[in-house]
Each structure stands twice: as structure tokens, then as C-alpha cells.
């Protein structure tokens, strides 16, 4: 089947192959070429050989010197002349599971615009005035002094503005005990005995709640499916989320687990019940760190409510009664126990490339839901479920995200779900927040509804939001796979069609390959960490980590400076990621440390023996 002139332009650097028999003397045009999108299959089945094939750009306009049948590649010896290569139109077709390589690099730092081109010819460089102006900007540290929390701006050198600041005060906890009163005594947290019953009594659907304190020595303990892992944090004074001071307890997390009365896991389907040390990928942004004391709540909810919205929500509400009492104790804790202080500044950098982060969160119902913007970090009170907000985009500041503006009910797929703690230390937000080469405009949360028409409704709003924000680039992330990929790809289309450069991030690999695509899905970062490229039921294993964030931001910068992203391979190939990581390490001079995967978890004696004998 021949292709259109426009399509030929998009594929000007792809091999030229005849779509039908053509006689000698034919002057080649787009009517004569086969669609390059089908070549991978033809090559792998042996029907097509592309050795020595000219590109469409080189063959277009040349005259055939011999008669050729369909599906023959056009080589140098069958045309009268080879046309000079024209400038590439970058777009490549939709990627099945894509990861892609970045070739050259452009960095703006220390007042210099550095462009490194490894190899190439016919290169056009266009340097937007924005970058040139931004290149002269001073480091953001100068902007700190006059910062006013809560929205007032202070101007600084180079037009940089500190929009707001957030201070995190860390308090260390070394022991958690039960006592007569919930209090923090130095570094010991006491949780009131009998609080469980009060928590249960607040929710009609919750019939039982058991509280355990699990320390590092006791990680080999059975656990029902893990519904959420949450930090324990509270606001100081009347400060709103994302501004002012937040107090947080270190080395301790809340973990919610549960079943129905008859023992069916809440969040059936690939749930993560089992022995904690074998089911949790420690130190993922979303998970407990190895060594953390885990305050685990095991709830029992009414039968048959595990797959209905009120069930998981009631479990979260009951558990939050306990967390809230700890928050109140944390508010009272003497300042002298504060072990460290962190300050986050949201800096706007007018003149630099404006970039937004679009985070797709689940909104199909039941535990596919998230509570947005509670009063307390990762709390319940004051928050609205994105399902009730009809999943439309909600713009948050990066500091609101880091201050726990998402209380995740966390959906299926333990390996790829982002629990509440993930947002508390979201690697992509942190990477963009500290990047002085971009103007980080904000984080857009958008729910993923069930029905296709609603998916397209919300993704059109995402596109319009990015347009109104006047973005130069956007990164779109999603968690897990399934019908959420339909809107994920639609978000990319809606952003891309407005001329905004866009990079997508998802778990894809082998099992989560995209089921849909469009011409804007050209730059993708795969969050997979599992050896086999599958949902391996290990909590947090395939979630977004710093190694993914650094690839995404560099890929976006490459796109925004007009570089083409290499086409993905046909099948998932983990080497693409390693090559990109190597490339990034060699260009930036900073090694990118890769996180461990399921192979690092304990292996039983029985299987050790089996493997040793094998």
C-alpha cells in the first residue's frame, strides 16, 4: 500500500521499499513506497531484506533503472542517482514498549550554553531566545533571602522567583511501644493501648483492626496484602500543605494491610500478601526503607466490600484515626529533638524552558482512587477523591506533592503501584525541582476513568491545561498498565499536537507493552526493574526511581533542543536502558546508581540448595 506525501516526509530517513511492482524508468514518488511501520515484522519473518537500502529521502525523485517487484528495497544500483539527504522530520511512529536513546547533549550551566555533537552532518542549530536569555541567569541560591511562603514572590538575579518554600523538620524515632497515652518521649513513640477499637468504631464497614510493631529483626513475618505505606508527618501551626513547616518522623512508617471478614484480600488480583521480607522491595520511594520500624494495621472489612469503593476507603479512614493521634503528639514534641532540617524552594525561572509534570493517577473506582489535598500530609480530612472530582486535571505545586498532597488508595499491581509515600519523595518532582536549566511550572494530576469517552474528556483538559500554561515540554507518568494506557497515550497526543515536546513514563517492558499509540509517542522511559520485565508481585519493584527520572528529563531536554530520539526496538530490550544510563553517566560525569530488584531479596534454604545442585 502506498503512503501519503506527508507520511513520507515523516519517514524520510526510513528505508525505501517498493509497495508494488514498478517498471524501469519510473520516477519514484511517495505513491511507490511501502509503509515503514510494517518493516519490522517483514524483516523478522524473512520476507524483506533491507541491506543497502536507500532512505525514502534518498530515493524520492530518482528514476528506477530496472524493473522491481513489490517489497524490494531500493538500493544504489537500481536508481539513476541518490538524492541528497534532506533535513529529518523527527517524528517516528508509535512505540510498542519504548525506551529510546539520546544521541547528543546540550547543557546550559554556569552562564554557558554547551552543545556537544558526537558525529553528524547537515546539522541545523536553532537556539531559542529563551535559552539564550536563561543562560545568563545566576544560581538560584541568591533568590532565597526574601522568600515569602504562601504565594508572594520575591525577585532575584536573572528573573528567578522563589514562589514558596517548604521546610521539613525531621525527628528521629528509635523505638515504638504501646502505652497509656499516645506520646513521643525523646525518640520513643508510644501508641495508646485500645486505640484500635476507637478506630474501628468510626467506620461501619471496618470490623476489626489489629496493630503490630514490626522492627528490622522481625521482617520475616506474614502480612496480608499491603494497601499503603505512609509517612507520619504533620503541619506546624496553621500552615497549608506545601508551605511553611512540616514535621516528620524518621525511621518509622505506617503500613495498612487487610482482608475481608472471610479472608479475601482487599485489592485482590496480584496482591502482595506473604512474608514481608520477600514481598517488599525496600527503599523504593513508595516502600519502607530497610531498617524502618513498621506500624502495621491489619483491618478486616465487611465481606464483599473489598472491590467496592466504600470498603478500601473505610479501611484507610479507620487507620488514619491512629495516624492522626500520632500527628497530634508530633505537634507537641519539643523542638530540641529535631535532628535535621530540609528546605525545599519552588523556584520559577522565567526565560528557561517551561516544563510541567503530568501524573496520571488511577480513577476507575474502589481502590483505584486517590484523595487529593488533605489538610495534613497524607491525611484524610479535607481531601477529595479524584473519582468524585470526575478525574479532571488538578494542578498542584511541586511542594504540595512533596508535602503529601496525595493519599493513595493504591490500585492493583503491587510492583507498579505508587503508594502514598511515593509522592512524599517523588523522584521526578525532586529531579525537576532542583534542575536549574528548566522552569518547572507545576504538577498536573489527572485521574484515569474507566470509560473511553471519559478518558478522552480528561485528556483533552490535560492538553488545554498545558497549552494555557504555555509549556515548552511535559513529562507524563502513569502507574501500572491496563486501560490507563489508553488515556496515557491520549495525554501525550493532546500535549504533542500543541507543539509541546513530551516524554512518557510507564511500566511497559514485556507484560505492560502499550496497546495503543500515536505519532507523538516517540520518547518513552520504561520504569521496569524486574529481571523478566513483568509484574512480579513485589511491592514497589517497578515504580519510578531516580534512574528513570534522570533519563526522562534528559530525553525531554534533548527533544526541546530539537534532537531526534532514536526509534525503540521492536521487542523489549533491557539493554536500551543500560545504554542510555551509560551515555548519561559519561556525558554528565556523574554515575547513575541503579536500584536493586527482586534478585536482592532473600532466597530460601530449600531453593539455595536446589540452585547449588543444578
Amino acid at each position, binding site marked *: 500500500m502506498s503512503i501519503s506525501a506527508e507520511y513520507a516526509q515523516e519517514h524520510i530517513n526510513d528505508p525505501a521499499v517498493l509497495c508494488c511492482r514498478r517498471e524501469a524508468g519510473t520516477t519514484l514518488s511517495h505513491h511507490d513506497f511501502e509503509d515503514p511501520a510494517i518493516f519490522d515484522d517483514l524483516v523478522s519473518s524473512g520476507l524483506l531484506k533491507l541491506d543497502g537500502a536507500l532512505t525514502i529521502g534518498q530515493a524520492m525523485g530518482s528514476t528506477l533503472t530496472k524493473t522491481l517487484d513489490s517489497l524490494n528495497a531500493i538500493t544504489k544500483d537500481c536508481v539513476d542517482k541518490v538524492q541528497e539527504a534532506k533535513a529529518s522530520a523527527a517524528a517516528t511512529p508509535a512505540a510498542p514498549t519504548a525506551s529510546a536513546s539520546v544521541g547528543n547533549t546540550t547543557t546550559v550551566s554556569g552562564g554557558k550554553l554547551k552543545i556537544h555533537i558526537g558525529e553528524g552532518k547537515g546539522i541545523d542549530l536553532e537556539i531559542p531566545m529563551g535559552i539564550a536569555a536563561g543562560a545568563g541567569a545566576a544560581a538560584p541560591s541568591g533568590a532565597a533571602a526574601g522568600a515569602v511562603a504562601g504565594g508572594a514572590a520575591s525577585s532575584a538575579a536573572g528573573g528567578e522567583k522563589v514562589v514558596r518554600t517548604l521546610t521539613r523538620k525531621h525527628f528521629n524515632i528509635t523505638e515504638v511501644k504501646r502505652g497509656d497515652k499516645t506520646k513521643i518521649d525523646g525518640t520513643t513513640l508510644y501508641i495508646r493501648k485500645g486505640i484500635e477499637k476507637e478506630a474501628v468504631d468510626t467506620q461501619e464497614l471496618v470490623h476489626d483492626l489489629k496493630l503490630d510493631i514490626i522492627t528490622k529483626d522481625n521482617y520475616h513475618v506474614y502480612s496480608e496484602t499491603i494497601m499503603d505505606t505512609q509517612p507520619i508527618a504533620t503541619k506546624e501551626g496553621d500552615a497549608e500543605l506545601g508551605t511553611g513547616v512540616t514535621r516528620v518522623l524518621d525511621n518509622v512508617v505506617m503500613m495498612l494491610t487487610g482482608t475481608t471478614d472471610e479472608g479475601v484480600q482487599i*485489592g485482590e488480583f496480584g496482591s502482595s500478601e506473604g512474608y514481608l521480607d520477600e514481598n517488599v522491595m525496600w527503599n523504593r520511594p513508595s516502600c519502607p526503607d530497610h531498617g524502618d520500624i513498621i506500624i502495621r494495621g491489619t483491618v478486616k472489612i465487611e465481606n464483599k466490600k473489598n472491590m467496592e469503593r466504600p470498603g478500601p476507603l473505610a479501611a484507610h479512614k479507620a487507620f488514619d484515626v491512629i495516624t492522626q493521634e500520632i500527628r497530634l503528639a508530633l505537634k507537641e514534641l519539643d523542638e530540641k529533638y529535631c535532628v535535621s532540617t530540609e528546605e525545599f524552594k519552588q523556584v520559577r525561572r522565567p526565560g528557561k524552558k517551561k516544563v510541567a509534570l503530568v501524573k496520571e493517577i488511577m480513577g476507575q473506582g474502589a*481502590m483505584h482512587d486517590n484523595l487529593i489535598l488533605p489538610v495534613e500530609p497524607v491525611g484524610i480530612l479535607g481531601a477529595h477523591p479524584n473519582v468524585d472530582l470526575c478525574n479532571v486535571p488538578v494542578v498542584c505545586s511541586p511542594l504540595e506533592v512533596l508535602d503529601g498532597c496525595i493519599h493513595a488508595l493504591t490500585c492493583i499491581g503491587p510492583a507498579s503501584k505508587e503508594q502514598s509515600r511515593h509522592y512524599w519523595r517523588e523522584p521526578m518532582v525532586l529531579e525537576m525541582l532542583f534542575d536549574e536549566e528548566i522552569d518547572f511550572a507545576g504538577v498536573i494530576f489527572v485521574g484515569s476513568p474507566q470509560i473511553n469517552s471519559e478518558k478522552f474528556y480528561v485528556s483533552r483538559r490535560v492538553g488545554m491545561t498545558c497549552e494555557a500554561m504555555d509549556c515548552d515540554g511535559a513529562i507524563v507518568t502513569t502507574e501500572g498498565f491496563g486501560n490507563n494506557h489508553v488515556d496515557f497515550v491520549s495525554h501525550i497526543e493532546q500535549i504533542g499536537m500543541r507543539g509541546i515536546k513530551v516524554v512518557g513514563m510507564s511500566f511497559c517492558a514485556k507484560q505492560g507493552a502499550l496497546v495503543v499509540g500515536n505519532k507523538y509517542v516517540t520518547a518513552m522511559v520504561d520504569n521496569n526493574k524486574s529481571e523478566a520485565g513483568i509484574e512480579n508481585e513485589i511491592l514497589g519493584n517497578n515504580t519510578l526511581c531516580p534512574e528513570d527520572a534522570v533519563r526522562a528529563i534528559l530525553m525531554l531536554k534533548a527533544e526541546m533542543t530539537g534532537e531526534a530520539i532514536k526509534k525503540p526496538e521492536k521487542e523489549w530490550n533491557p539493554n536500551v536502558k543500560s545504554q542510555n544510563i551509560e551515555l548519561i553517566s559519561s556525558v554528565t560525569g556523574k554515575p547513575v546508581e541503579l536500584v536493586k530488584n527482586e534478585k536482592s531479596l532473600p532466597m530460601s534454604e530449600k531453593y539455595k540448595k536446589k540452585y547449588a545442585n543444578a
Partner: protein
Amino acid sequence: MQTHNDTRRGEQCEPEKKTPKYIDKVNYYEGIITEVHDGSVALDIKGRLGSIRIPKRMIISDYELKVGQEVAFNMSFIEQLSASVNEHYIKKSSKTRSDNENNE
């Protein structure tokens, strides 16, 4: 008292598996939605060929999901991967677990 258990998880702990041979041979199947929950959907495969329960995000829908709607998908046959039992999954089942605990 928690005793050390010899289950372990992930692909690394699985019994030796053979490579499935027939999974690329897909056939067209239709089904009827029999249950719709906030988080999941159940369906019977037409021709009394069994039933499936899946999370909602694994079904692509143009309209609101309702009991009685027809759905379609391509599927191959299900192949056994090994003769041995994967203890990890046996012990994950709540019933088996409580039996184990009683024996400990």
C-alpha cells in the same frame, strides 16, 4: 511464635518451568459480563467455557459497564508450566496459612 519459613518469592523461587508452546495460537472468544463492581468485573465465556474475574482497568470500555453486556477477546489455551507445586503460592492462601499456623 514465628518460625522461619522456607517459601521465597518471585521468579527466582519458582519451580523449573517449561516454555509454553501454544500461547501464540490465539482464538477469538466472546463473553457475557456477569458482575460489575467498583473495582472488578466478572464474565462468563460463551459456550460454557469458564469464567474470568478481572480488575476494571484490564477491560477497555466505550460505555458504562453493565451486567449482560457482551465482550470479546483473543485467548490461547492455558498451559501447565511445571509438574511441581510452587510452595510460595500455596502458603499465600489464607486457608492454607491458618492450617500451617495451627500445625506449628
